């Protein structure tokens, strides 16, 4: 109670308290002097003796202050005031420090919010830690994902270690015709229990139940939130109503919540419908499909155990399967991927590498500030010594310096938080658009705590450096020291140099990493994709299944479309195709070769195949290497012909002429022969990262497809052309939707975007690191030149040439830089291995890249040394020598 009252008094009646204290101590001194004078001393002498006995009025006062209630608050306020005053006197130092820390903390905050959203925050599904994505794959095709439906039903019926197994897949693009203009919307088939398993409650209505999911059940649908808002006016009485999809009435049973994101990045669907798969275990050829399977492990079951169980279940049923499946699935393997990894696998590595990079940038920034602080700390030795003499203890000085550091870092941290918030959108745009979890990136309490921790840590690091420097100093010597330019204890230099070397080494690692990404992007950008993207516009056209049910109707539509598109003004070439470079083909067909021994059942390779019109190769400028392209004569009823790519010829006819050979497709034994009439160049069909695989092209009239791409080459601006094309399509049939309109250049840029994003971000961080390290070198050399100006002056007075001095100073700086670069190169060799998957056609330790980065760094370091070195040689010896 008393303490509290005293605290209030101490805080709010400070001047009164201080006056009393002063009066009290002075009286004590006076009375002491009185005593001594009475003892016979002369008055002035008595006063002097009293002062000595007292031990300094200010020190006693300081000791009393330190014992008071709320002393720490008091001191904090004093320290803050003092710190602010010091910083105001050094606005340049304060600004450099705050900007450095703000950049470092900002970049870390932004990146950490991505790490947080992708890797730390719980997934938006119930008990997501126990959810696994199950995929079967062939070792030679590890990217293909999905599981065979017989295995799914089999696992579902017999697995003891999983709690629940559900599946999705079988995308369907349908034409929605009720309530407004015809629109192509994408949906996905799910098993009835999927939403319940992942813990999603509908916003309206109900989830699917098993009655919806029986084969032959009345068609049901759950609408996505946005589709419900857009097409159905967000009306609540839509539940139980029918909507028309592809001419089929489907009953709306529920609406998905607004926040729902499908647990698969490849699926951004607007509605879900029941799969209608028979869930009886056992192989029925008619039911065979490729599904995506999610399973929930029972609590306490390890993923490995579940994996072993699934493998065993597949092995057990193999004997019941038709022989062609047994062959096909002979060397198939099963992989269980934790759901989080399935959802972030593509980018988590890049995000972690970038997080490590920004952490290094912040570390360099802190080292830089620490270095500046040490330099200042040495310059401030007198001030500190004076304060010590006035009664401030070592702890008090340390606290003062730490307060200054924390003051700087909290301002830097606040600015960094603002910067990080701003950078979030930038960062989001660098992530692949497909990433569902990217929508949840934001600054949440965890990110805030992280930022706060960074600010405090950097404050301590930057504040402690001068403390270390101050701890080495001796009071009396400092105060006696006449010149501010005498040599200092070597330990300061050592600390200084070590910090700069560390900075350079870390920055070197970043520079090497970004160099590798720059080279990767360069390789990707200069990669010949096999076609000419310039001036090509593409758009997808989807034929509604009800209206266009037959092959004839598909090819008739395509012919009409081609005719109208070619007649559009400004169009040089027009083509339709069932596939496109970079986005792949829709179809893959089991293929064999005439005259070769029949493959084992299921042993035929499945080759991507696209029906294209005669002008397709000309439109994309894909070179015809041999033979001919298709003509109008390649149509229904005429002999079946195909064109293959070079990769096909190389793989299946090595050392032979592929032209004129026949391939066989279709049911085994039916032997539908197709003659290879042409060979064309390879294109990057499945994205830029994947080398061209064997591909087959067929005339669209012999291989019609219901979803086609219209490909136009023109000198017209894309916007005008797409409008013209859309109206041409509407003139044929207004119920046919056009979607996914993009120029080939857009698609190329999209394919390069991840590589470009990694390069841009890493490049940005490396540039920042390089700049900071250069500032660090500059600071140390400038400081050295300043401190040694006397020595330099003497040397020059004794006849040293300017070039000698220049060489000395440059040499001094470059030794530090080169040591740092060498250490950094060693670190880079180890660290860049973590980036292997981010690189494109370059190895992590690529010597020419490392050398180029090191050279660049050396040049920048030389420049950073040269500026202060120039100043050193401009020193006029007379001025320096006269200075003291």
């Amino acid at each position, binding site marked *: *109670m*008393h*303490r509290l009252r*005293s605290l209030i008094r101490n805080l709010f009646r400070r001047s009164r308290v201080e006056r*009393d*204290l002063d*009066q*009290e*101590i002075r*009286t*004590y001194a*006076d*009375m*002491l002097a*009185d*005593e001594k004078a009475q003892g016979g001393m002369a008055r002035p002498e008595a006063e002097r003796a009293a002062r000595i006995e*007292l*031990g300094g009025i200010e*020190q*006693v006062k300081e*000791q*009393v202050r*330190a*014992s*008071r*209630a709320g002393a720490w608050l008091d001191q904090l306020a004093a320290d803050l005031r003092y710190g602010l005053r010091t910083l105001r006197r050094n606005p340049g130092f304060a600004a450099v420090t705050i900007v450095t820390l703000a950049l470092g903390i900002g970049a870390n905050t932004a990146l950490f919010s991505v790490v947080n959203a992708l890797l730390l925050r719980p997934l938006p599904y119930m008990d997501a830690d126990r959810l696994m994505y199950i995929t079967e794959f062939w070792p030679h095709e590890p990217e293909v994902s999905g599981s065979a439906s017989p295995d799914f039903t089999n696992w579902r019926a017999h697995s003891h270690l999983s709690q629940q197994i559900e599946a999705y897949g079988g995308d369907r693009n349908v034409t929605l015709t009720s309530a407004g203009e015809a629109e192509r919307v994408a949906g996905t088939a799910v098993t009835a229990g999927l939403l319940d398993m992942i813990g999603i409650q509908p916003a309206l209505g109900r989830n699917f139940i098993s009655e919806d999911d029986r084969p032959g059940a009345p068609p049901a649908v759950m609408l996505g939130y946005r589709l419900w808002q857009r097409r159905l006016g967000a009306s609540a009485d839509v539940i139980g109503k029918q909507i028309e999809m592809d001419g089929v009435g489907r009953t709306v049973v529920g609406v998905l919540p607004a926040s729902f994101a499908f647990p698969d990045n490849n699926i951004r669907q607007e509605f879900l419908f029941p799969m209608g798969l028979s869930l009886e275990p056992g192989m029925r050829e008619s039911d065979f499909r490729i599904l995506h399977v999610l399973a929930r492990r029972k609590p306490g079951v390890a993923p490995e155990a579940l994996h072993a169980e699934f493998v065993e279940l597949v092995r057990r049923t193999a004997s019941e399967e038709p022989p062609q499946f047994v062959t096909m699935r002979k060397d198939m393997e099963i992989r269980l991927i934790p759901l989080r990894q399935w959802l972030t696998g593509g980018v988590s590595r890049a995000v972690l590498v970038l997080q490590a990079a920004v952490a290094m940038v912040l570390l360099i920034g802190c080292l830089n500030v620490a270095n500046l602080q040490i330099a200042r700390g040495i310059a401030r030795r007198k001030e500190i010594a004076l304060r010590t003499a006035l009664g401030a203890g070592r702890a008090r000085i340390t606290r003062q310096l730490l307060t200054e550091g924390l003051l700087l870092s909290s301002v830097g941290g606040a600015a960094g938080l603002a910067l990080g918030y701003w950078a979030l959108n930038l960062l989001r745009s660098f992530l692949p658009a497909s990433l569902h979890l990217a929508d949840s990136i934001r600054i949440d309490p965890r990110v805030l705590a992280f930022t706060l921790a960074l600010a405090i840590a950097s404050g301590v690091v930057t504040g402690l450096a001068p403390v270390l420097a101050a701890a080495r100093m001796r009071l009396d010597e400092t105060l006696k020291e006449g010149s501010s330019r005498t040599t200092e204890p070597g330990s300061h230099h050592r600390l200084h140099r070590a910090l700069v070397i560390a900075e350079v080494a870390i920055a070197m690692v970043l520079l090497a990493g970004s160099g590798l990404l720059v080279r990767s992007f360069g390789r990707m950008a200069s990669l010949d994709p096999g076609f000419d993207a310039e001036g090509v516009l593409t758009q997808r056209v989807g034929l509604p299944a009800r209206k266009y049910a037959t092959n004839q109707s598909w090819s008739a539509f395509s012919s009409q479309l081609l005719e109208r598109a070619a007649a559009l003004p400004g169009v040089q070439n027009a083509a339709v195709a069932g596939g496109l470079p970079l986005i792949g083909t829709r179809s893959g067909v089991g293929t064999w070769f005439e005259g070769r021994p029949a493959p084992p059942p299921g042993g035929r390779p499945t080759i991507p195949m696209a029906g294209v019109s005669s002008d397709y190769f000309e439109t994309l400028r894909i070179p015809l290497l041999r033979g001919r392209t298709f003509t109008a004569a390649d149509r229904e009823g005429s002999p079946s012909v195909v064109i293959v790519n070079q990769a096909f010829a190389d793989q299946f006819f090595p050392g032979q002429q592929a032209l004129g050979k026949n391939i066989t497709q279709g049911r085994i034994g039916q032997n539908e022969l197709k003659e290879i009439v042409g060979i064309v160049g390879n294109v990057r069909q499945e994205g830029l990262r994947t080398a061209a695989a064997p591909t087959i092209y067929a005339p669209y009239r012999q291989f019609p497809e219901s979803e086609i791409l219209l490909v136009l080459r023109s000198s017209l601006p894309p916007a005008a052309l797409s409008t013209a094309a859309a109206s041409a399509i509407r003139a044929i049939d207004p119920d046919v939707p056009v979607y996914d309109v993009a120029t080939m250049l857009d698609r190329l840029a999209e394919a390069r975007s991840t590589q470009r994003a990694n390069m841009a971000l890493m490049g940005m961080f490396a540039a920042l690191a390089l700049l900071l390290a250069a500032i660090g070198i500059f600071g140390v050399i400038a400081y050295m030149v300043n401190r040694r100006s006397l020595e330099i002056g003497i040397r020059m007075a004794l006849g040293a040439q300017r070039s000698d001095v220049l060489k000395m100073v440059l040499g001094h700086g470059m030794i530090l830089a080169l040591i740092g670069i060498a250490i950094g190169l060693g670190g880079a060799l180890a660290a860049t291995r973590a980036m292997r998957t981010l690189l494109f056609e370059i190895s992590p330790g690529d010597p020419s890249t490392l050398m180029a980065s090191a050279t660049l760094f050396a040049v920048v370091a030389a420049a950073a040394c040269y500026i202060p070195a120039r100043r050193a040689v401009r020193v006029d010896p007379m001025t320096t020598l006269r200075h003291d």
Partner: protein
Amino acid sequence: MAAEDLLPGTLDLPILQTLSLGPQHGLGISRRIGQITAGTFRVMPGSLFPVLHRMEEQGWLAAEWGESETNRKAKYYRLTKPGQRRLGKEKDRWDKVALAIRSALEAR
């Protein structure tokens, strides 16, 4: 022996004891302690004043300004009720410690 050399907090007892005899100012307390301990304790102002201010904040002492015998304006400290209770407790504690140490020293 300077008071700082003793156990921390040991200065409390002599100060409380001194003030139990009547109000006194800083120098007076210091001199009085010197007298009663026959010069064993030399209380320096650097340790005396922090303790006085702390005990005042704890409510054991009260202070007011008064005129000294040499006509100087001095701050006089006096014992409060809680201070008197404190003194009693401190004495008991000290007696116990002293007894314990003595028995430890005399133990055979």
